[in-house]
């Protein structure tokens, strides 16, 4: 881990140089990735460090987003604060709503907590369409960024740097927070709340505070989001936002500090890249999540860190060759599965079904070949690749197990 600071510096340098390296559409994706990373970090504080699983974090993200838009519109469009400081408004609103919601949800722990957070988010979502003055009804609330401090905030570059500075600052603050006594107590809350109470700590107040801090950072992420698109609609309160942050954070790994951020950024990146290629990205996201939960319970980053910290003792070459063999066989299986899902999606899509006339099923183009849906070929191709990949993975796993046994 001695290279960690260096790696961090390089990453920050690349992030700063990014506007000169990539296209506008990619830079737009980068803004989304940064926001998703910050949101996931806020979630990770609550879920990874304090062990409280929230299924309703969209509420605080959304509250922050709306607060920022209203702050931008305040004083006839002058803005409550100069544009670069507007995320503070989102953070403050997130903090207050987090204190309120945290008071109720941390009354219970474990699965109850999870259910209450979900219900609170749904409460806000059900209420929002009726409160037109605050949430703007169907159309939402829109605004525009005012120039401040000699910066125009009109171009994408300005928005990118604004988001970058805030995201890095907040992640830094979250790191420092994890080192404060309150941050250490969060770990205690996760590991053994009973014992904390026995030591004289008020676990309800502690839980509420940590919940509020997490909601505050979620609010900042929400504010950045609405400042980026210069609008907010009650769609940001919908459950799929809460779902996405849970999936992203756990795919990255919530127990390692930067795990959620990397998970959020990577999944948002793939979502952006594949949005033109597939219509069922969310399905893939769900499947990846279930697979990660089943086979890599620490998450992708968590597993990586664990492997680096505790090498298998087989030597670098051996480890690398096993890893490559696993990845290659997984890639074959994944290609087979993706082929099947995409083919199925195309066969089932309404446009295709409209084209079917009395038993005449036109061919479907997929991966630059035409496939007849009624023939065995496409199904056998997908299933075959999937089966071969799984068989190869099993084989590699058996070999590794056999080698371990021989050593012992």
């Amino acid at each position: 881990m001695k290279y960690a600071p260096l790696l961090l510096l390089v990453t920050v340098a690349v992030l700063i140089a990014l506007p000169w390296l990539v296209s506008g559409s990619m830079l737009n994706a980068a803004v989304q990735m940064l926001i998703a990373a910050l949101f996931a970090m806020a979630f990770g504080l609550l879920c990874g460090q304090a062990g409280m699983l929230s299924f309703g974090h969209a509420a605080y993200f959304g509250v922050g987003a709306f607060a920022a838009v209203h702050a931008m519109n305040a004083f006839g469009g002058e803005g409550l604060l100069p544009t670069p400081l507007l995320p503070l408004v989102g953070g403050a609103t997130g903090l207050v709503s987090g204190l309120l919601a945290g008071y109720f949800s941390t009354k219970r722990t474990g699965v109850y907590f999870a259910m209450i957070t979900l219900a609170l988010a749904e409460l806000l979502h059900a209420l929002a369409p009726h409160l037109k003055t605050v949430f703007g009804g169907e159309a939402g609330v829109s605004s525009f960024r005012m120039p401040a401090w000699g910066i125009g905030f009109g171009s994408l570059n300005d928005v990118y740097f604004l988001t970058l500075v805030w995201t890095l600052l907040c992640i830094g603050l979250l790191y420092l927070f994890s080192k404060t006594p309150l941050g250490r107590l969060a770990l205690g809350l996760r590991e053994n709340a009973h014992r904390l109470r026995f030591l004289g700590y008020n676990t309800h107040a502690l839980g509420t505070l940590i919940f509020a801090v997490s909601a505050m950072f979620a609010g900042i992420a929400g504010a950045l989001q609405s400042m980026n698109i210069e609008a907010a609609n009650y769609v940001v309160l919908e459950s799929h936002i809460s779902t996405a942050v849970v999936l992203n954070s756990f795919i990255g790994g919530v127990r390692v500090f930067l795990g959620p951020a990397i998970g959020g950024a990577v999944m948002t990146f793939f979502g952006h890249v594949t949005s033109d290629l597939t219509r069922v990205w969310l399905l893939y996201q769900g499947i990846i999540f279930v697979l990660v939960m089943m086979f890599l319970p620490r998450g992708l980053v968590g597993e990586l860190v664990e492997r680096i910290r505790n090498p298998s003792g087989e030597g670098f070459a051996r480890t690398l060759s096993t890893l490559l063999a696993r990845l290659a066989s997984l890639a074959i299986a994944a290609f087979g599965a993706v082929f099947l899902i995409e083919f199925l999606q195309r066969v089932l899509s309404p446009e295709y079904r409209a084209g079917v006339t009395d038993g005449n099923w036109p061919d479907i183009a997929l991966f630059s070949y035409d496939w007849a849906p009624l023939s065995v070929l496409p199904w056998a191709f997908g299933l075959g690749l999937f089966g071969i990949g799984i068989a190869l993975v099993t084989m590699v796993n058996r070999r590794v197990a056999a080698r371990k046994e021989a050593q012992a």
Partner: protein
Amino acid sequence: MDQILFALLNGTIYGLLLFMVSAGLTLIFGMMGVLNFAHASFYMLGAYFAYTLQPLTGFWLAIILAPILVMGVGILVERFILRHVHEHGHAHELLVTFGLSVVIAEMIKMVYGKFAVDYRVPAELNFAAFSLSGIDYPFYRLFMGGIAVVMFIAIYLLLTKTRVGIVVRSAIYRPQMVEALGHNVPMVFMGVFGIGAALAGLAGAVAGAFYTTNPNMALELGVMVFVVVVVGGLGSMGGAMAASLLIGITNSLAVGSDFRIADILTWIGMGGWAEEIGGLLTMRMSSLAATLPFFIMLLVLVLRPSGLMGEKE
């Protein structure tokens, strides 16, 4: 008066439906300690399976076959996914079922599209049971309530009067002891999970025809079921029953009510102020109906955090 009677009846039947789903959830939680997030997805699967089977087999066979199919899905989930992650703890099991609920919802969207499908009450069941002051009461509602009641009596008798029931109940309290006595506890778990899923599937198959069948129905009902479970106390059948009825009835009473908070304030001379503030104070109860269960939940959390009939943590 008649309106209130209708609302009470509707609420009771909706409550029974909620109970049908939350009973399985509570049973599974009590037994395996797993909060099955995908439970409401089984409800949705039941509705879609029945919708698909209906043209092939007719309505009656469809609502019998759909729960059996859902039971199959439930057993597969328990055997190949939940058992695999059991060693990582309960939080992990909850997360996996959460992921499954996402996967199921997305698959449904892929196969049936994003919008509601045309799953309707069959014509032979679509008639009025009785009418009060000129308003017909649909027979199908009574039919749903009847199925739910029959289901509970069957489960109650199964759990209390049969040998299988004794094994199941003892496996909840002392799984190791039951295993030592030679019963196959993992098998019992699988069976309970399957039955719970089938119950949710049956509720979906029956209710999907009356309410709408769309890819959002799992989330909408799932949230209600969670509220029921928090209000009633997880693991308590009686609590689940009471909370289901409470939420069902308040919900349907609120839908038909024009009451506003501003009206109360008028009595103490603050009506004008309330009208000025607007927002929550001037909203009609009917438009707040969807949020009422959540307020009940918050109230219960403040007054009695362990739920109406739950045990203290």
